[in-house]
């Protein structure tokens, strides 16, 4: 995983680089948009972390320019700007996610992982939440190294939830991920898959919980009391 970080504050950049390094990401830091653009043209990055308020230009314009050049590298905007329309403007320009300063490394890492989906055929990603692992290459879930037997739908559901760990995922998105467009989705089908997944994860001793957000969707997070619980 190679990440590009465009951030003008050296201290913030160093802390992010160190924090994400501990999480297994390699990170190249650039202090100006010019340098970042140059690097992006010559090296293939998996993800761009972009501060909007750079000394040599506007980050939103940078995002637009990157997208115009047919570069589809995911862009995560990291900014101090939280104006009412800033988020929408950033996402409309072509950014994939928007994170407002200040933040903690686990949250940034989780967002990076969610964005690091790779097209099939490429080397897979290993997603980890507490003692639960998901290998997208092998299409397999493991708890403490031991494989868990899951159906394709349960695997699809788990992967989707693990990529958005700690965040509520709407039912509609999950249904889209778990069922192909052609198949009929009965109102309780998703609940049934979730409930089977919960039972299998519990049976295998996974230290994660699938929470129900009533009326909205589901959220996977490390179980309360586990060492991975976010502060």
């Amino acid at each position, binding site marked *: 995983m190679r990440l590009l970080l465009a951030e003008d504050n050296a201290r913030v950049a160093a802390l992010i680089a160190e924090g994400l390094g501990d999480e297994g990401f390699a990170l190249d830091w650039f202090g100006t948009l010019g340098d970042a653009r140059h690097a992006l043209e010559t090296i293939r990055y998996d993800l761009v972390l972009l501060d909007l308020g750079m000394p040599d230009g506007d980050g939103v314009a940078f995002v637009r320019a990157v997208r115009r050049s047919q570069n589809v590298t995911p862009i995560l905007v990291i900014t101090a*700007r939280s104006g*009412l*329309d800033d988020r929408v403007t950033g996402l409309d320009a072509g950014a994939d996610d928007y994170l407002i300063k200040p933040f*903690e490394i686990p949250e940034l890492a989780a967002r990076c992982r969610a964005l690091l989906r790779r097209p099939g055929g490429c080397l897979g990603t290993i997603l980890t939440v507490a003692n639960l692992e998901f290998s997208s290459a092998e299409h397999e879930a493991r708890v403490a190294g031991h494989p868990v037997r899951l159906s394709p739908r349960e695997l699809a559901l788990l992967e989707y939830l693990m990529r958005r760990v700690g965040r*509520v995922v709407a039912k509609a998105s999950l249904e889209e991920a778990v069922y192909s467009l052609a198949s009929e989705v009965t109102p309780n089908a998703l609940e049934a898959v979730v409930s089977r997944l919960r039972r299998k994860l519990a049976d295998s001793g996974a230290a994660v919980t699938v929470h129900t957000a009533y*009326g909205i*969707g589901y*959220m996977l997070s490390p179980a309360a009391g586990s060492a991975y619980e976010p502060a």
Partner: protein
Amino acid sequence: MTEPRRSHWRQTLFFKLSLRLAAVAGLFMMIQVALVVWMYVGSPAELDQLLISAEANRIANAIAARPPGPVPALSNDLLPPVAPRTRRAFVVHDRGGRVIAQHDDRGLAADGAAPASFLVVNTQRETWGDHFLLTGTRRVTIAGKQLWITMAIAGTGFRPFVPIIFNEIRFHVLLPIVLLSILFLLLNFSIVRSTLKPLNTAIAAIDRIDPAAISTRITAPLKSWEVEALIGAVNRLLTRVERLILTLRDFVGNAAHELRTPLAIMMLGIGKLPHDDNRTRLLHDVQGMKRLVDQMLDMAQANALVIEAGAQADLTRIAADVVADLMPLAIARGRTIVFVDEGAEVIHGHAEAIGRALRNVIENGLAHTPPGTAVEVTCGPGRRYAVRDHGPGIPESQRANVVKRFQRLDRRNNDGAGLGLAITLTVMEDHGGRLDIADSPGGGALVCLIFL
């Protein structure tokens, strides 16, 4: 609002203008008097005539007042002379040349002969040293009969003429000028009042300015250069005040914004510390500061909210997004959020702002609902949200206070700045909506956001 204009009428422009105009009238009168005095002093012949005429009039009046009958001599005490310290003698003839009254005064006698011509009306003066002797004849008409009064007046100096001058002033200067002044002041009263009317209208217009609507400007109610100048000045002042307020708002926004980078450094730095109680406490403190900064920015943005024409806000979708966003926080704190969709509408509004308004209410609920309970968020029916928690509720006496800025029910709790519900209220007001606080049936607070 106080009305100092009424209580201090002496301070009114109206009073001052009237007073000054009255003073000008008074001055004018004095100048006139001085002018008259100067004029008479400069022409003694005129004074002589006036003195003779005045004396003749008095004698005539005395004769007219006398009962008809034989002609007794007029006694001295009955007819003191007009002029002080003079001697005066007279003879009154009728048309036939008969003497009908005669009066001598200490050796001064008027010429007893009837006037050579009854048409003669004359005045003569003889002067030797300080002394003067005036003689003259006047024709008067009493009860239809014509009489001739011939008199002599002897005296010294100027003093005898003072009453004459005074009389002249009284009848020919004071009376007309007093009448004119009264008329002048009355006119002045209405003229000044109608002239000042645009000013009063402007004052009323300035009073009506809503302090919250800082972009308001006033317009001149009537054409008047001074009032337009005043209104122009007030409008320029309003512009400066607006700029100041906007600068202040910007400053709050910018300051909060600039705080985010150092906060990020602190938070990331604390994240590197070994896991222990200190780290947890520090992290908690920094999160409190983060929330404070967030709320200050939200408040600044809510104050400056502009809802674009045609902006659409899907209340259901906004609520679902906010609940999804807050769920991890709720779960981390051992609470949960239940979302109930009762069919809310799509309204004209700023979706992001409404989302932040709702978020503050839910965060408030999460802060007060006990562990293991849920905050229930109901969207709809129609154009409303209802957020219910299972905490102690908000006492009725405190409900007006909790929506004020920097107000917290529990001062020991230092989560946030106490701006949450104030932000919500501001956003609701921006949308022409309202925020209702009530007790929910089973206990706990029930906060409703109702859009118009």
